[in-house]
């Protein structure tokens, strides 16, 4: 049995998806920033999907791809807007958790 705290991961990831959409709503952001944020939200959505289906499966490659895309977008967000600093912290945390999940899965494969 894979030991990991999926509760924190799932909840945090889902919350972050919607936090991004909250950030977009009602703010005068450039279309590039909106695009980047929506992409990040969609990557988080895929991460949620993967975790939901990871009941006992090994999805290292898929998880790595999502994690890398997420990492790149987090960097991009960090550069584009200072207003989004709190969200960037959450995303960094998610990228870290994703890395931990990959490590655990690699250990048990």
């Amino acid at each position, binding site marked *: *049995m894979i030991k990991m705290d*999926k*509760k924190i991961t*799932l*909840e945090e990831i*889902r919350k972050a*998806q*919607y936090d991004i*959409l909250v950030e*977009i*709503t009602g703010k005068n952001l450039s279309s590039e920033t*909106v*695009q980047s944020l*929506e*992409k990040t*939200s*969609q990557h988080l*959505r*895929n991460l*949620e*999907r993967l975790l*939901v*289906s990871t*009941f*006992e*499966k090994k999805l290292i490659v898929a998880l790595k791809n999502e994690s890398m895309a997420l990492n790149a977008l987090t960097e991009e967000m960090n550069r584009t807007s200072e207003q989004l600093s709190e969200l960037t912290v959450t995303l960094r945390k998610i990228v870290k958790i994703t890395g931990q999940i990959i490590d655990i899965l690699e250990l048990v494969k």
Partner: protein
Amino acid sequence: MKPCYCLILLLFLGSCISVSKEQRAIVQQFAVNTANFSTLPEKLWMELAEIRELRGIYYANSFTDPFTHLNELNDIVRERFSNDKVPARVRPVFKILENYANGLVSLSSDAPAKANSKLYGTFGAQLETLTGDYNQVTEVGKLPSGLGTLLGETLSLGTNTYLSNRQYKALKRYVNQADTLVSCLCSEMEKYLSSELLVQLIANEDSGLGESFGFYFAKRMPPTIESERDYIGLKKRIVVLKEFRQQTIEAVKKLRIAHLALEESLNETKTVKEIAATLCGFYTEVERLYKMLNEINNKR
């Protein structure tokens, strides 16, 4: 006819017909109910996947960027066809139970042996393969093997209109030997169904539903009546799904007790009358599950 009425009728008939035939009918009814039940728990994961898909469509509609929107829709389709809705570790448990129950249906059937002869070889082999596969992928909860081989041997004896003494013994042996397997399967099923992770997955869809629709509504005010109906429909499905999980756990518990009672009846330590209430308890739970499933289907 309701299962309980069938049982009462069987008890009445029991006084007029031979004991073996009456017991065979009891076993047959139990086997049919077990086979029906074995296909139900996986509906839980299927339903979760469907709710996830539907809320995903609303989530996709909260994006302003058309490419991200399209990506989300493509990912929904990919997920739909991933064929992994039921966790790989859980699926074999239900399949083994289904196989065992189907074997029991054939064994207690009054159909001529030739009619089912093609199936005889496959049931035993399938049961053995499934048990072996399951034992290979799990570190804990090893299932006893050898039952498939026994089933293959037993079914090759054939069945007649009246259960012969030889077949009665074979049936008794099959049920006796399967008790440990059924008990292990029930433990595994209960473990998966009561797991905190499954509770979290349902809770995740529940809160995700509110958030997905929340952002869809934020982008499209006033919302369409259709979208509001979808939201209410999905919310109701989540409520039924939570009850369905609880009900399935109850049915699993009753299945274990019912199988033990059936074994006691075949071993003649208990009479058919004495085990009637226990068997009825299991059949009622299965019936309830079917009603809930119909309720879910009607909400679609």
